[in-house]
């Protein structure tokens, strides 16, 4: 098998550069998000070199790779969070439901209502649990009445598996919850506005194994209704929760495919080296 694997000596030096030979099929049939030739620059430094990748509807796509490989940068392109970083420039074509999200006419506020995000460190607002979840529906004016807002909050908390734990203390501060509960609160906050896509940037890296298991279960349940992209450093987590896995290396997409195939039969030497723990 080893002789089949593609090697690319250029990528073993630390200089970042473009690498064209992507193993696996980047396109999927029912793509919710479709990215073509996405290049990101931080000032003069290029961080992503022409990424092509589709995120399938109601599926979990895991983005793995060593630190600094650009997977978080790529994730932040999808809800245009990179706009908030000074000197950051995004080129290429990213389509959500076949609409160009970087179109000057498209509204970033509406985009972010359709593409939710969960961060590495739980970041509930320093407000009550209720206000945390109600914030999105409020600013997007989704609720017609107080009762409607209450039911939106309840539904989101139930979907995030947090309702039973917090139902009797909705008015206590969100920051008073445990780390795992805080992260589920952030997930509830993200799904409160009924997004189509949820981006998760290492959502479990600050959590203990039990809380991690809860979140992974939750991701599995959520994938029935949402398109999910998750950045993770844990190979086991990628294997457990995702249907498709994409391997990033130094700003390039090296390999993408069904999760099972990537972990059992990687096509690229780099992928194999990474998942077997030889570096990264």
């Amino acid at each position, binding site marked *: 098998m080893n002789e089949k694997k593609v090697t690319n000596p250029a990528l073993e030096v630390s200089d970042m550069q473009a690498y064209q030979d992507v193993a696996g099929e980047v396109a999927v049939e029912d793509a919710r998000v479709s990215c073509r030739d996405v290049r990101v620059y931080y000032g003069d430094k290029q961080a992503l070199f022409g990424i092509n990748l589709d995120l399938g509807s109601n599926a979990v796509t895991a983005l793995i790779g060593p630190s600094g490989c650009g997977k978080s940068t790529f994730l932040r392109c999808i809800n245009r969070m990179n706009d908030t970083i000074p000197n950051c420039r995004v080129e290429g074509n990213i389509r959500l439901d076949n609409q160009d999200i970087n179109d000057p006419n498209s509204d970033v506020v*509406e985009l972010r*209502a359709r593409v939710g995000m969960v961060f590495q460190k739980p970041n509930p607002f320093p407000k009550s649990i209720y206000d945390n979840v109600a914030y999105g529906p409020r600013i997007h004016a989704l609720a017609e009445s107080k009762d409607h807002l209450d039911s939106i909050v309840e539904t989101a908390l139930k979907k995030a598996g947090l309702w039973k734990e917090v139902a009797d203390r909705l008015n206590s501060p969100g920051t008073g919850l445990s780390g795992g509960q805080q992260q589920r609160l952030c997930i509830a906050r993200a799904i409160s506005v009924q997004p189509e896509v949820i981006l998760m940037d290492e959502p479990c890296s600050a959590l203990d194994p039990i809380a991690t298991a809860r979140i992974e279960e939750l991701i599995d349940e959520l994938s029935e209704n949402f398109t999910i992209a998750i950045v993770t450093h844990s190979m086991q987590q990628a294997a457990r929760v995702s249907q498709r896995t994409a391997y990033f290396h130094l700003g390039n997409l090296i390999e993408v495919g069904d999760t099972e195939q990537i972990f059992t039969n990687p096509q690229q030497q780099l992928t194999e080296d990474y998942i077997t723990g030889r570096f990264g």
Partner: protein
Amino acid sequence: MTGVVLALAAVSFLLVTIFSSGYSAFWRTEIALTIEFDPKLMKVEPDATFDQLQQVNYLALFRKNLERAFPEVTARADRRELAQMFSESAPDLLREMVLADPGLVGARQVVSVLASSSVDMITKGNAPRDIDEARRVISDQQLRWLDRFDESGLLGSRFNSDFFTSGPSRSPELAGLGGAIAGSALLLLVTLLLSFPVGVAAAVYLEEYAPQNRLSEIIEVNINNLAAVPSIIFGLLGLAVVLNFFGLPRGTPLVGGIVLSLMTLPTIIIASRAALKAVPPSIRDGALAMGASPMQVMFHHVLPLAMPGMLTGTIIGLAQALGETAPLLMIGMFAFVADIPGSILDQASALPVQIYLWAESSERGYVELTAAAIMVILVFLVAMNLLAVLLRKKFERRW
């Protein structure tokens, strides 16, 4: 360690000195006199109208009563010395009593009359008693009368509430801080209303929106430098620009507030920027990712979180402004204003200016007033700093 001990010793020495020379100002000596509201002396009918009662010469009424009480004092000079033992306000006191209760006409009543400042100092021990007449604040004769009052139990003492309500006066026993307190309050109000919004807005602009270029760097350096400019320079600026160019009324809290705002702004801006910097970026990211506009992120998340820090900086800045004297002298807030200012366009004085004016008065009666006024301003300063600490504590504990 030695330094700390020395500093504490110096502070306690200062406080003890101020307290020991100032606390007596909160009490005033009174002399009880039997006053006969004789209609003949007042030159009115017993059933006189309010207007007629207003026309009465109450000074004459007071003098005649004194003469009746001391029939043995006949010489003009002696009579004057006797009258000088009482505050100038005695006739006004009688007038107020009669106007409040016209039924007093024809009656006899014991009235506690404020003693003059010299008598007050001798009874309190603030001026030496057993020395040569020439150097004593009252004469031998007055001292004898004073002892007579004391023996017959006519001397009294009461809490000096007028000190907090009345304006300045050229008689120390009548002078109060009311005008200065009102003036300082109006000053701080104007300063707060001007400097807080401007300071917070400037901090938000510089911290969140200003492009990182040469211009913003220059602005930044200048703000930091402004905090170190001697306050009298701000006074000069106020004199040249606010008074002479814009022609606003001289010596008013409005002008003083404008000048003090300029002085307070750097403090508020620097504190507010630090507070904005301390808001965790994860909160901004979280709000932006929910689809909040930059404006919503600012007003829903960043400002509420930075507010305690901003308020603390503002209160510290206002406390600084409360103690500032030099710029106020430049814009004419040192005039003798007997009326208590009612608006920001009235001529007014301020606490530190009043202290300065009293401190340089030649009359000895003002010494205890100066110390007492310093005690009042220290209480205000401690209260403001305490408020700042409490605000910070309260908001920190909440989340």
